[in-house]
């Protein structure tokens, strides 16, 4: 019984976190977008800078009609958003929020996350196929091509970290970076860990379909890509999954390269509560960076996208992992 309760609490906490974070980041994204373009953005709802607008948006989406296109594949159509969201939510299980809280302390945490996030591809392809809409299908196909090709540099750069710390358990990865700023993985084996981080960051942008790699949902070409036909809560699920994924990849970047829940000042300001603070703020920083990049860079063309993945990121990460591996052996 107690175990069941534990499981429930452990699974509800990440969900609550995702929901609250999604609302905050929705607001942030709109505000950042408008201020980058010298506009004001939301100003009315709720008083201060329209802080209640995302809540209103969410309520609106909840109360909308569920439309299923007549010629769609009904079962797949309904299943797709659930799978997409479930895949990114499941990955949160292995994220160590602090030294004492991790929903599932797997000793193959890294491997689990790489595996479970690839599951999103199936959901996206399902959504695109079942909508029976050419734009959706095109978007889904692009998305799958993109995610599959960027999976390789992502995995390789994550493996570089695994070589350095010698464990697949994310909690232990954090543990290994204890003791201040200069014990973080990003500063080890200079500059090869930094290169690994850059590769990971670029590839993860592509994995979560963010600009400049947002060709799967390129509004100007494909209406909205794979979720064109979705309405109401099903659409909101895709949205939620996108934002959850953004934090997921940022959180992993923070854990693998920036010490996870470790304080940058060694013992100062560390402890379980501070751990949550450091982890979440590091994650949010990268989410913010992703948002800023969205309003800075134009979208890549499909061939450029493939060029970046196969001719730049993949070979460099191969060379990188070799060098780091050799260095680690010789040390």
């Amino acid at each position, binding site marked *: 019984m107690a175990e069941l309760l534990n499981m429930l609490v452990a699974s509800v906490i990440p969900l609550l976190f995702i929901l609250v974070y999604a609302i905050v980041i929705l607001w942030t994204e709109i505000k950042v977008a408008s*201020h980058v*373009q*010298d*506009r*004001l953005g939301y100003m009315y709802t709720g008083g201060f800078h329209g802080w209640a607008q995302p809540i209103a948006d969410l309520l609106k989406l909840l109360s909308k009609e569920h439309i299923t296109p007549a010629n769609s594949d009904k079962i797949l159509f309904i299943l797709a958003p659930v799978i997409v969201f479930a895949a990114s939510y499941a990955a949160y299980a292995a994220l160590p929020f602090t030294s004492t809280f991790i929903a599932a302390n797997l000793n193959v945490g890294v491997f689990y996350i790489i595996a479970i996030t690839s599951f999103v591809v199936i959901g996206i392809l399902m959504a695109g196929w079942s909508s029976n809409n050419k734009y959706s299908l095109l978007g889904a196909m692009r998305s799958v091509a993109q995610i599959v090709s960027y999976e390789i540099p992502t995995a390789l750069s994550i493996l570089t970290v695994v070589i350095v710390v010698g464990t697949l358990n994310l909690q232990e990865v954090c543990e290994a970076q204890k003791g201040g700023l200069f014990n973080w993985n990003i500063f080890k084996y200079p500059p090869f860990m930094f290169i690994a981080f850059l590769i990971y960051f670029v590839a993860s942008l592509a994995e979560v379909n963010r600009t400049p790699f947002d060709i799967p949902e390129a509004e100007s070409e494909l209406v909205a890509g794979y979720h064109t036909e979705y309405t109401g809560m099903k659409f909101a699920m895709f949205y939620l999954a996108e934002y959850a994924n953004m934090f997921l990849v940022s959180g992993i970047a923070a854990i693998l390269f920036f010490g996870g829940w470790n304080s940058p000042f060694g013992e100062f300001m560390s402890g379980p509560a501070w751990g949550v603070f450091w982890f979440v703020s590091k994650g949010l920083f990268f989410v913010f960076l992703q948002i*800023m*990049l969205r*309003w*800075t*860079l134009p979208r890549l063309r499909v061939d450029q996208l493939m060029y970046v993945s196969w001719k730049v990121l993949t070979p460099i990460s191969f060379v990188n992992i070799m060098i780091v591996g050799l260095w680690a052996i010789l040390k």
Partner: protein
Amino acid sequence: MKEYFKNIFVALWTILVGLRLTFKHLFVRAVTIQYPDVKLKLPERARNRLYVNIDDCIGCRQCEMACPVDCITIETVKALPNEDLGVTSTGNKKRLWVTKFDIDISKCCYCGLCVYPCPTECIYMTDVYEFSEYNRHNLIYHFSNFTPEEAELKKKQVEQFEIEQKMKKAVKPAEQVTVSNPGNPEEKS
């Protein structure tokens, strides 16, 4: 090979340059305003909704003729010899009752051509620009003091007068006649 690494370097560098620019703009004051709450001051000669100060209108129809889209409709009735319509604020003598002065603002192209020829400067642009309506017919503005019935009455009176005049001419020289002036503002009140 050199080209390849140079490209990568340039790509990373330009991303940083772009990020710096967008980051700077995060803290630039917004150029947009909260429109219904805050309004920008209009330039002095902005052209918006027309207004006709009908008391000064002498019914010369200059504006009607100038309008390129024919959205001004004017009807006038001659004043009878015994009626004194007074003078306008610019000192022109009024000789005509303006029984109808309609501007269909939905057709108006805000060219302002009607404003310049007016001898008494009584048709001019105001700074009102929010006048949307649910019904298109509400966009026809009536500036005349006459209701359609009063205008009809006035016309009849004039016809009557002319007929009487003719008859009197045939019989004997004209004498004083009195008619009531339904369109006269003083008499109305």
